[in-house]
């Protein structure tokens, strides 16, 4: 089973490192210094959304039965050898059926509004055994690159640990305090 990107929402602090790393990975130079000088500017495919005191890095989920792939009339939206869903710009006609059917808002339009734009799960990086750029850049472990089985195994272990050792709450960290303050606001 292929690895994909998982999100542990409560760990996101909205630093937007994932957004920058995504745009750099999709630049020609693949460096921050080079990417900011490119025309057209490289585009990110992940967006940190704010929800009250929390934030969430939103992107394509690479669904196994992807509605966007089914809905695409030209075959532009397709799956690569690692099961990642990507859009072939040469075949894309900008009909936005993919945008309409995606339940996650994972597909958007490129800056000139002609082609579908979405996460491709960084095929060049994963081919080298590296995690996608957003995962590699995440400093808090919000974004993880695992198989569903690996992710579930971690959760099972955590659940078991809580059941055996008791659900002792940790001391609130700074982020917990900041969020609880903001919740009153």
């Amino acid at each position, binding site marked *: 089973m292929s690895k994909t990107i998982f999100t542990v929402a409560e*760990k*996101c*602090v*909205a*630093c*937007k490192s994932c957004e920058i790393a995504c745009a750099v990975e999709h630049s020609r130079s693949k460096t921050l210094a080079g990417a900011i000088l490119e025309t057209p500017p490289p585009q990110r495919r992940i967006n*940190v*959304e*704010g929800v009250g005191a929390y*934030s969430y890095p939103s992107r394509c989920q690479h669904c196994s039965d992807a509605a966007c792939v089914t809905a695409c009339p030209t075959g532009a939206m397709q799956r690569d050898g690692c099961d990642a869903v990507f859009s072939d710009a040469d075949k894309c006609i900008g009909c936005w059926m993919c945008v309409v059917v995606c339940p996650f808002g994972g597909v958007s339009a490129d800056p000139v509004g002609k082609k579908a734009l979405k996460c491709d799960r960084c095929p060049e990086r994963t081919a080298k055994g590296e995690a996608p750029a957003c995962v590699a850049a995440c*400093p*808090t*472990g919000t974004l993880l690159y695992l198989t569903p089985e690996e992710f579930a195994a971690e959760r099972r272990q955590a659940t078991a640990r809580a059941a055996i050792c008791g659900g002792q709450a940790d*001391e609130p*960290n*700074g*982020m917990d*305090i*900041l969020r609880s*303050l*903001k919740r*009153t*606001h």
Partner: protein
Amino acid sequence: MADTTLPVIEGALLKVAQDKGFATARDRLEVMSPQCGFGELGTCCRICYMGPCRIDPFGNGPKTGVCGLTPDAMVARNLLRDTVGGTASHVGHARHVLLTLRDALNGKAPYQIKGVSKVMALAKTFGVPTEGREVNDICRDLVNIALEDFGRQDELPNNWISKRAPAEEQALWSDLGLMYSNPHNEIETAMHATSMGNDADPVSLMLRVLKMSLIDGWTGLTLCVDLQDILFGVPEIAVTEAAVGVLEENSVNVAAHGHNPVLSEKILEWAEKLEGDAIAAGAERINVVGVCCTGNELSMRHGVKLAAHNSQTELILATGAVDAMVVDIQCIWPQLAQVAKCFDTAFITTDAMVRIPDAIHIPFEPHHADESAREIVQKAIDAFRRRRGKPVDIPRHKSTAVAGLSVEAIVDLLAKLDAEDPLKPVIDNVANGNIFGFVGVVGCSSIKFRDNAMTEEMVKHLLRQNVLVLTTGCTAHICAQDGLMTSEATYRYCGDGLKAVLEVLGKAAGLDGPLPPVWHMGACVDNSRIVDLMVALAERLGVKVGQLPAVGSAPELVQEKAVSIGGSFLALGVSCHIAPAPRILGGPMVTKLLTEDLQELTGAVVRVELEPKGAADWMIAHIAGKRAALGI
């Protein structure tokens, strides 16, 4: 945000901007949101180039910086640099006023001594002989004492703290190693100590924060205000008006924005002198209005009307009715030049330190103050000529407001009740609970808190519980605009005890009704007036300032200056409410130090509350604790 109570004035101003298609700070904040948690927690260190380093608040990633700096030391270093920013601002402002006063005394700058009573009072404080001497000679001695503070390398205590601050507190500060000599040396040392590879002890760094804050309090605020009162006069109670409705369609509207009255006083003077030119250009008159803190300075000394607080500055330009906005230092948004460009508005910068693209720059320095002020006012008249006849969109909202409550004005007023012992009526009413306590509401106006009318609502909760509110800066504008500086507000919002006291004071002041429940004590630099009043009350009672039933609050913190002002209150033992959270939460030990352990050092703590009622409730409970300790 549970319930939205956007103040009417803000709503009207936003509508003007939106109707004309301007994006405002709210829109820019929305694009910026959510904001970075590392920055908010204070655990982003950009001080050296092994970084930027960030600490994972959830404990899985980095636990220290690359150099090994702990999260507590990181937040403390960052907080110290914030405090340096605030202190440098006030010390720089104070030094500018000092040099202007020196040059005025030497006949090199066209300013006169208007505050003779202040000269005499300070001469007594500093032991300067006055018998048979000219005022200017006495004043020269005071200038030399102040100049010594900025030049000394002898490590002896700075004159302005050692002579102006209360003795018992000085002894404590001395014990804690917080006394200082030359403010410039300390600013240098703080920047040095926070650079890579220096102070990494969070406790040591936090003591530096308190020391830097004391420098702001005494050689920034106090020295600055003392000398401004000498140059421009001690404020007296005056009635004015506040909010955008003070702009006049058919007058030359000159908005003075910034902080330094060395500029705005001259603008006011030349606006009067050039009134004929304005009338010749078809205007009814020249309408100088005050924005931000230089507006407060003008309203305190001349009753000049207040047009806008900081977060409204771009919005009043969108009315199209401001002919010139002339700015000096601090809190000047670069965006203003972009809005002004869309109208006939002349947006004029004057200080070499505040250069903004697309602004008109007219250098203003005290030696040639008259020539520059004249040129600036003429630019405003020219702009009016271009604007005349074009439609403007001025929301009609405004409120009357009583301003000018310097300590001297308050004492003069109280002397009408008890000439022998002016503070006695206040002390008696604090003791009997008619005045439950005092809150100094200070600092900025923040678009993050305007939607729930943070300052206004918090103040109203306090007034209901008989807490007298002393305010300065942009929170003073907010209160003035909301009608909280009127007799009507006393009737409408105050508890019975406070109402009774204010009725007596109103009668003594010769007002038609009670004194307002929120006292306008000036610009943000005038927070020293609040401190002076508290020091006088504490001395009269024979207690330390920190024992008084008094709290400070910066309910809408924006500028670094509010951090150092808050620190100066904390050093005095006065606890502070603050919103939003200072950027320290990523350091658990520093957080505990400020919110709990500081109690053991100075007697003060910091409390963060982001909604008005919670903030007021905490302050009232804190004041109740102080009253209980005093046995009242």
